[in-house]
């Protein structure tokens, strides 16, 4: 009898629930690797976006509408991404989230531009949370594209500022992935070092295939025999982890200045050897001062997704900015949202961030941190984590870079 009562009750509540859900769903398509060597990078971001959306929905959603983030596995392949993009559009997504791989982002920007030109009234927006090739907010800039991460030149400005202060660094080795992003990192390092520290010699400039190298030992040995005082790399995902594995095995003891030392497994690969050696430049680290509310969020994330760490704070920034823009515009449609995003400033857990209107590039302070055993939150489920270095805060102004963007805006 009891069971039957419950069943009736359940049926009744579901009817009510359907009634309440007459509010629209805002569909966001997360197109990134969810398997393969870069799967962890995609998965960590996907879970971040999902948790951010959950919190927004729990707080009443966006103008009463609920956000739904769906994952589409693109295997870091530009061609596959276009297939997934079409699938996402067919599923009704108006917002595309992507970040892993500038090769993919370039293809998506082009496809989104084309789609929007051909389908007025059904525009889609591309929120790029991690593809940091500078061109996307310079010569290739698009009204439909917003970048929520500092681009390679901005991050490199942080790294080169730090190197400029270190007189003991006289030679630098550049190693990176052989595609548009890796090349952009190498070019930025060369030009910025030449300007800030012309005395520094670049003793190596190596590009290796993306996600193909299993054993980095020969590369590390080249670095060691080159006698470099520091290494700069933009490697991410498995390429970062394997590079650090080989560095630990070969006993390489120069500082590694990275964009993505926070890639899953990189810190644990080096272990204790990474203390004081592995650096990263990022928009936040979990060990910065923050509110109890933020600490609770970091802990909630870890509890829900124990395989990963709270790393993609920019996922929260992107979602918070989206909500702020949609509420200011009073609509979740792409064009009003895009217009409201331009020049929007939000206060987030670690400070403020502004979406520059000219080129849709987020402007925010950056932080240089180093692996340390004296931290509140470790990563990779070990006790080591990221600690801000002395004078490691790069203000929004010094991180800011000029843009050549000439954007075409819709009427």
């Amino acid at each position, binding site marked *: 009898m009891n069971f039957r009562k419950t069943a009736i009750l359940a049926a009744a509540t579901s009817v009510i629930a359907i009634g309440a859900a007459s509010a629209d769903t805002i569909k966001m398509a997360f197109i990134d690797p969810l398997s393969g060597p870069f799967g962890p990078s995609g998965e960590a971001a996907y879970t971040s976006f999902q948790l951010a959306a959950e919190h927004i929905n729990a707080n009443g959603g966006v103008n009463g509408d609920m956000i739904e983030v769906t994952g589409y596995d693109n295997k870091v392949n530009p061609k596959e991404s276009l297939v997934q993009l079409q699938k996402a559009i067919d599923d009704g997504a108006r917002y595309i989230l992507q970040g892993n791989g500038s090769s993919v982002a370039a293809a998506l920007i082009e496809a989104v531009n084309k789609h929007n030109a051909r389908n007025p009234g059904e525009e889609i927006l591309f929120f790029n949370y991690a593809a940091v090739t500078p061109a996307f907010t310079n010569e290739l800039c698009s009204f439909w594209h917003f970048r929520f991460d500092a681009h390679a030149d901005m991050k490199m400005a942080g790294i080169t500022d730090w190197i400029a202060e270190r007189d003991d660094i006289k030679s630098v080795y550049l190693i990176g992935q052989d595609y548009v992003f890796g090349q952009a990192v190498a070019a930025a390092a060369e030009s910025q070092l030449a300007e800030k520290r012309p005395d520094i010699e670049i003793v190596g400039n190596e590009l290796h295939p993306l996600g193909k190298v299993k054993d980095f*030992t020969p590369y590390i040995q080249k670095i060691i025999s080159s006698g470099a005082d520091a290494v700069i790399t933009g490697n991410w995902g498995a390429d970062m982890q394997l590079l650090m594995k080989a560095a630990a095995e070969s006993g390489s003891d120069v500082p590694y200045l990275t964009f993505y030392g926070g890639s899953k497994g990189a810190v644990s690969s080096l272990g204790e050897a990474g203390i004081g050696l592995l650096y990263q430049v990022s928009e936040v680290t979990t060990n910065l001062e923050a509110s109890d509310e933020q600490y609770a969020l970091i802990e909630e994330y870890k509890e829900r997704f124990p395989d990963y760490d709270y790393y993609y704070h920019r996922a929260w920034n992107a979602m918070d900015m989206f909500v702020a823009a949609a509420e200011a515009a009073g609509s979740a449609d792409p064009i009003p949202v895009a217009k409201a995003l331009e020049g929007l400033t939000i206060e987030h857990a670690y400070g403020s961030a502004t979406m520059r209107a000219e080129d849709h590039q987020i402007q925010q302070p950056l932080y240089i941190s180093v692996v340390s055993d004296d931290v509140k939150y470790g990563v990779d489920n070990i006790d080591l984590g990221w600690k801000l270095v002395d004078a490691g805060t790069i203000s929004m102004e010094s991180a800011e870079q000029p843009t050549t963007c000439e954007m075409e805006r819709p009427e």
Partner: protein
Amino acid sequence: METIVFGLLNGVSYGLLLFMLSSGLTLIFSMMGVLNFAHASFYMLGAYFAFTITGSTSFWIALFIAPVLVGLVGALVERYGLRKVHANGHVAELLFTFGLAYLIEEVVKIVYGKTAVDYRVPDLLNFAAFEIYGATFPAYRIFVIFIAIAMLVGLWFLLKRTRAGLIIQAALTHPHMVGHLGHNVPFIFMTVFGIGCALAGLAGLMAGNIFVTDPAMAVQMGPIVFVVVVVGGIGSLEGAFLASLLIGLLQNFAVGINASFAEIFAFTGLSPTSEVGDITISSLAPVLPFLLLVLMLIFRPQGLMGEQEL
């Protein structure tokens, strides 16, 4: 000088790992005529089994149990899958193993998740064996070299110097005769397939913690294994050994060479800023094994030590 020493050390250790992986494939092919597309999947299973066993007991127990488990899985595949398919000829077998590779990958994804697992080098071997030109060489890699050599010697002894080896070889060429002599030929085939898979499992156990243990490791290792087997001569254990070392050395030396095409072909007036002149030897390293494969098929289709043409 440093380049040469490093190239030799890394080349030999990487080459021997390749040999461990490809020896099982070439063994199965030479004994049974089956080109096993799922071979790298057994390599992956070895790494995952080792990860699980290491987690609950220790690496040293995994060292013995994981390959045996992989071998058992292989034997079951032969007994209940391949043997039935065998009646329909080689193409059916090929397609069967092709499908099996996908099946194993998906099962691994379901059981262990899509991302990499944290499979580590045992603490006992996690130290630097020696230092040379400022770089250290890990003890674990020396261990890998020893295991690979022990495996080569053991395999050679089993096949060429024991009665069991003689029967196995006879069963390949004259299965009916061996059957009439009272030996269980299907059982021999099952054992050979099992051993081949166990060897791949052993390679996975050794390599999974040096590299990354994830569901993509089989797909990434697959092509290079076929290069080794074809270059060495299909079905030749000695050939696979030589080819593994050759490819290991080739790749590692290439990474160490910074010279670009413009410097090498300076006499032709190639400009260092041109598309072609800009390419360095080290950036070509990952392509070289496949270049070798193509050249080998053109100029010596039977491979280094192979007896039969493809």
